[in-house]
């Protein structure tokens, strides 16, 4: 199925047309969840790509964020003479907010951009047309495996981010700020619940779905040669980072208020 093309002019009608195209893309993706064939190898490949591509970047980013979080928390809490409570701050901010968001953004930056560029290149090179003409529905073949893989892998990446950043915060607390290490850990464990953990992971899944859907959509609707692939990749980044920040507000309000 060809996506409806944008022909109208003007910002408002452009936005409407774009929204319509995205809705169409989303509906096709959902509808094909129940397609007669599931491309299991593609799904495994994508999980592997998303995981291995993102991990290397995720480690340092998570570590640095954890360190900063600890220092910032320390500065604020020290004003009240409560610097020993910094472990609580680290624990809560981390699992509820930062870890899911960092994992989502890193997957977007590494795996998402690659998806937009790959799919965009396939669109420009008529490879998607070729796929369709060979009787292969591109949604179950190349879109859904990517989205589902991200939905499954991201919660794990959230957990990894969580452990790495908490560990780095712990190290800063003990070796730089000379706080009591076991008190820090006590606060971490007493202030996160299994529920918080799960909610953080659910956030991760939602971000995974958003990042990959937007990346695939941006590539899938690319047009106009090599320049079009660049535009698609660029659009993917802008759209997904905006979407993540916005959806995060919604999710936090829904889950923790």
């Amino acid at each position, binding site marked *: 199925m060809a996506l409806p093309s944008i022909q109208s002019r003007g910002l408002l009608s452009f936005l409407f047309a774009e929204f319509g195209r995205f809705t169409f893309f989303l509906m096709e993706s959902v509808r094909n969840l129940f397609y007669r064939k599931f491309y299991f190898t593609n799904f495994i490949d994508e999980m592997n790509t998303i995981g291995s591509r993102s991990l290397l970047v995720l480690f340092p980013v998570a570590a640095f964020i954890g360190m900063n979080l600890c220092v910032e928390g320390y500065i604020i809490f020290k004003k009240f003479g409560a610097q020993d409570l910094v472990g609580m701050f680290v624990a809560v901010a981390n699992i509820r907010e930062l870890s899911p968001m960092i994992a989502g953004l890193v997957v977007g930056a590494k795996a998402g951009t690659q998806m937009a560029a790959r799919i965009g290149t396939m669109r420009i090179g008529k490879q998607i047309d070729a796929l369709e003409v060979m*009787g292969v*529905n591109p949604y179950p073949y190349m879109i859904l495996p990517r989205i589902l893989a991200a939905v499954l892998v991201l919660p794990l990446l959230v957990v990894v981010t969580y452990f790495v950043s908490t560990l780095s915060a712990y190290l800063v607390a003990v070796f730089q700020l000379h706080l009591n290490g076991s008190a820090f850990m006590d606060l971490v464990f007493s202030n996160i619940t299994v529920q918080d953990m799960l909610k953080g992971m659910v956030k991760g899944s939602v971000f995974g779905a958003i990042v990959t859907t937007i990346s695939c959509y941006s590539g899938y609707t690319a047009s106009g040669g090599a320049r079009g692939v660049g535009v698609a990749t660029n659009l993917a980044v802008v759209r997904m980072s905006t979407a993540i920040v916005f959806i995060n507000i919604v999710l936090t309000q829904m889950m923790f208020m």
Partner: protein
Amino acid sequence: MIEYRNVSKAFGDLVVLDDVSCVIPEGKITMIIGPSGTGKSIFIKLLVGLVKPDAGEVVVDGEVVSQMPSGELYEFRKKFGVLFQNGALFDSMTVGENVAFPLREHTDLPEEEIREIVAEKLAAVGMAHSDCRWPSELSGGQRNRVGLARAIALEPNIVVFDEPSSGLDPVTADSIDNLILEMQRRSKCTFIVVSHDIESTFKIADYIGMLWAGKLVAFGTKEEIRTMDNDVVQQFFNRSSEGPIQIVPPVCEPDA
């Protein structure tokens, strides 16, 4: 049977096809010719349902292509073997995997048999022993030939080639012409070939249709077309820049 019934297609203000009707004869080679940008590729995309007509319908074996739900459309397309302009090979797969792709997707053949078929098809297009190479390592002509092999891998009933020899040297182009002719005579399938090469058209066509300015200005057997008293057709065959066909540069709208 393939029939175009009053098919029209426009992109915005640009009318690409305007009330085109024809019946593509079965078991023959029909060549679609016409100057660049007259909608030859769109003509083909309408046939396989990649583009929907604004008006009219394309009917294949009694079914209206544009009315098929998408699930049926994917089934329906298995009848076709299509070579796109420039091959459209999957660049993440080797040559062998490209040719094997339709077989792996749509048959349950064991791996050895698939490998045999791939080798056979690649040999048929003069690309034997190239299955481990990557599309990016191939020349334009080689890519076209691999595209041909992939298009015929499932032995489809209807074979559609979009400019299989454009941009190739005359010798390679001629070898592809011979290949098409031989494939068709052997399989007796319906072939639709898009071209703007006059020599190759007269060499391999049974029927010729000429598109110009949105209209199918001529359609008939090779002999009918050759002797047709039509300015457009004659200008095209005489390779003349004087006549009704004028090279008009695409218009840029100021606010675009």
